[in-house]
């Protein structure tokens, strides 16, 4: 139907400028990609506060077993399980994904490719509404009879499948329903992102002129779409096992509990890259801007990312080394797992090479971007211990694993989000954030973060098993030295949480009284910096931009200015 599309081409794009719903509806019923991005962002931030609160409660219980936790009370074993399960689920599905992919994808993709909106604005709105419903369903599940689901975010059957085992009949089904709804929301959003990047680019913007962060978000969306399908089928099976008593995962009735592990991790491992890639894209964009230097190896980075994406589909069973899989299969998955560190290392080298010889400006966003690299490296390197099946048999399900993936997910979900937020805050709200407060918040987050998780590595090597409510019940894990490390981690968490108040204060004060940002406060090249801050409905009221060059033409020798916006002719 190409002719239909062509027939519409001559329609003046100003003709569609409608005023839409008025009043409060303007905010909750908008189809504007920037408003939907804000909805995702604020929902994600709210959920991050909930997830952080849960971490506070269970860390208190771990460091001081049996204490009446201020703001919660005494933690029962069931509550403890519900807290750790939902902390994990929330931080991945309701914080990392909505903030990194949905909020920044929504905000940045149309602005960075020079479009006035997503290609399907109403599907975009629907995607957020389904996401909101999923978040509400999850939160509601914490308050039903029996409490929230406590079978870990990986939800392994038979524990998750049988009400008699998990004791949270309703909570488990609601948790599963919430996760399924969240998947639907991100499938809708993902299709929107992919088609928008493919089709709605500004005239002149070729594939290699697209800012890397857009590529990364779209590749992440494709990975998500291709990996989540089997888990959706698996979730339907688990739901039937829970509610109508089928036996998909029950070996006594011809089922197989390990099936869930395969379906879950076939999604779960690519999911790590689904959230990692946007964070890397954010980092590389920020680093190019603040090093005033062209990205070292744009195409290398892109191809490496695709290679990572492809490889990520062949590593999942490294989560199952002790689940009784054939040791020969374990060897295969060990090789693929160690192989995937090659492209990831390459991405890190590209970032380091971009920094080399740049004129580096250490503004707050740049600090976050550099911290992302430094902290993620620790996460990546400790992953090699766990990818090696011999070592993993010892480390499996200890705090070593927990510290490892927090050293990947915290840089991704928290550091990456703060990097993006502080970098694009002037564009989103039209005001500069306070750099001093930003730096206080930065150091107040990064230093305690390491004090939380380095002790947990040590505890993990010492044999501290995960998912234990009270170590007093395990004499060999209840020594004074171990408690000391647990308490260091908990105190560090309290300090880190306290410093988040600085962030919220900075946001509110900067938004209220901050210095006006102007169009392009960081002297950046990409298209979002060529319009007003914040951009009006339709993004470029005076007409959509054309593109003449790639996104990273910094410090070009023939130019007086050290940047060269993509839309500047000549």
């Amino acid at each position, binding site marked *: *139907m*190409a002719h*239909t*599309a062509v027939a*519409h*081409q001559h*329609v003046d*794009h100003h*003709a*569609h*400028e*409608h005023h839409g719903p008025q009043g409060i509806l303007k905010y909750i019923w908008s*189809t504007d990609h920037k408003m939907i991005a804000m909805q995702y962002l604020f929902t994600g931030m709210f959920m991050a506060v909930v997830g952080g609160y849960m971490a506070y409660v269970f860390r208190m219980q771990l460091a001081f077993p049996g204490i009446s936790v201020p703001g919660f009370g005494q933690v029962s074993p069931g509550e403890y399980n519900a807290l750790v399960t939902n902390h994990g689920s929330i931080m991945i599905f309701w914080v990392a994904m909505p903030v990194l992919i949905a909020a920044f994808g929504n905000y940045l993709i*149309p602005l960075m490719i020079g*479009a*006035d*909106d*997503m*290609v*399907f*604005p*109403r599907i975009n709105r629907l995607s957020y509404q389904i996401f909101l419903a999923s978040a509400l369903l999850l939160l509601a599940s914490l308050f039903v009879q029996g409490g929230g689901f406590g079978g870990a975010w990986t939800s392994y059957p038979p524990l998750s499948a049988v009400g008699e085992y998990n004791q949270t009949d309703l909570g488990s089904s609601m948790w599963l329903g919430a996760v399924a709804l969240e998947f639907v929301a991100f*499938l809708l959003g*993902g*299709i*929107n992102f*992919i*088609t*928008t990047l*493919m*089709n*709605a*680019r500004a005239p002149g*913007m070729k594939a290699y002129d697209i800012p890397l962060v857009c590529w990364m978000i779209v590749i992440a969306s494709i990975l998500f*779409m*291709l*990996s*989540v*399908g*089997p*888990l*959706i*089928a*698996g979730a*339907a*099976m688990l739901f*039937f096992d829970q509610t*109508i*008593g*089928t*036996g*998909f995962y029950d070996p006594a*009735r*011809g*089922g*197989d509990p390990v*099936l869930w592990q395969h*379906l879950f991790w076939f999604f779960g491992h690519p999911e790590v890259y689904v959230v990692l890639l946007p964070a890397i894209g954010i980092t590389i964009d920020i680093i190019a801007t603040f090093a005033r230097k062209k990205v070292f190896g744009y195409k290398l980075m892109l191809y490496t990312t695709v290679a990572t994406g492809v490889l990520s589909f062949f590593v999942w069973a490294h989560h199952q080394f002790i689940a009784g899989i054939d040791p020969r299969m374990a060897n295969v998955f060990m090789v693929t797992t160690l192989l995937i560190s090659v492209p990831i290392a390459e991405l890190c080298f590209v970032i380091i090479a971009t920094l080399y010889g740049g004129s580096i400006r250490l503004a707050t966003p740049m600090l976050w971007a550099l911290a992302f690299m430094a902290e993620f490296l620790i996460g990546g390197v400790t992953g090699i211990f766990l990818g090696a099946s011999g070592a993993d048999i010892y480390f499996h399900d200890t705090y070593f694993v927990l510290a490892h993936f927090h050293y990947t997910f915290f840089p991704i979900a928290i550091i990456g989000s703060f990097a993006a937020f502080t970098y694009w805050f002037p564009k989103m709200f039209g005001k500069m954030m306070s750099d001093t407060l930003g730096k206080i918040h930065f150091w107040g987050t990064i230093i305690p973060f390491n004090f939380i998780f380095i002790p947990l590595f040590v505890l993990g090597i010492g044999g501290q098993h995960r998912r234990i409510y009270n170590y007093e019940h395990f004499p060999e894990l209840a020594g004074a030295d171990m408690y000391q490390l647990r308490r260091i981690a908990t105190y560090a968490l309290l300090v880190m949480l306290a410093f988040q108040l600085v962030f919220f204060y900075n946001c509110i004060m900067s938004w209220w009284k901050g210095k006006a940002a102007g169009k392009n406060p960081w002297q950046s090249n990409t298209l979002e910096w060529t319009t007003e801050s914040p951009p009006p409905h*339709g993004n470029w009221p005076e007409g*959509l931009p054309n593109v003449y060059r790639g996104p990273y033409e910094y410090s070009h020798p023939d130019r007086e200015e050290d940047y060269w916006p993509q839309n500047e002719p000549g």
Partner: protein
Amino acid sequence: MAFAKPAATLRSATGIPTGRLAVWWLLASEVVIFGGLLGTYLMFRLGHPEWADAAAHTNTWIGAFNTLVLLTSSFTAVLAHQAAERGDGKTAAKLLVLTIGGALTFLVVKGAEWTIEITAGYTITANGFWSFYYTAAGLHALHVIAGAIIMGIIAADAYRGRELQRVELIGIYWHFVDVVWIFLFPLLYIAK
């Protein structure tokens, strides 16, 4: 107030209309959903030769009839696309209604078939084969229902000559629903 599409929707940097591109990506995501389910079923079926006894109780003739119904409805969907290409929205709408008729016939036959099976005691909890039988066919039936509803909306638009490009899009989706059934039919009915 009618929704006004942004300029982004009308751009086509790839040369493929955005709607068609999106439908193909949607189908890619559907392929992995059904792929995961049917792949799982195949692995289980190979590990449980005794499931053939349960499969022997499915009615191949009813399945074959439904295959024929779906194939025919795909044919009317193609004719609707042709009519839409000619700009003949009214004919396209009528042909889409015929396609919906096929969908409804399929669902009615399926409902009758399930009723017979359930009253004979072959429920979803009877054994592993029946669990997969109802889950896979149920998921497919959900797609038939969703497709029929969307087709109704598109037919109503097409009748007034609006959004004719969508007739092709729902056609692509409908062929996919058809193809899934082409996989389900041998896997659930013929393999005994």
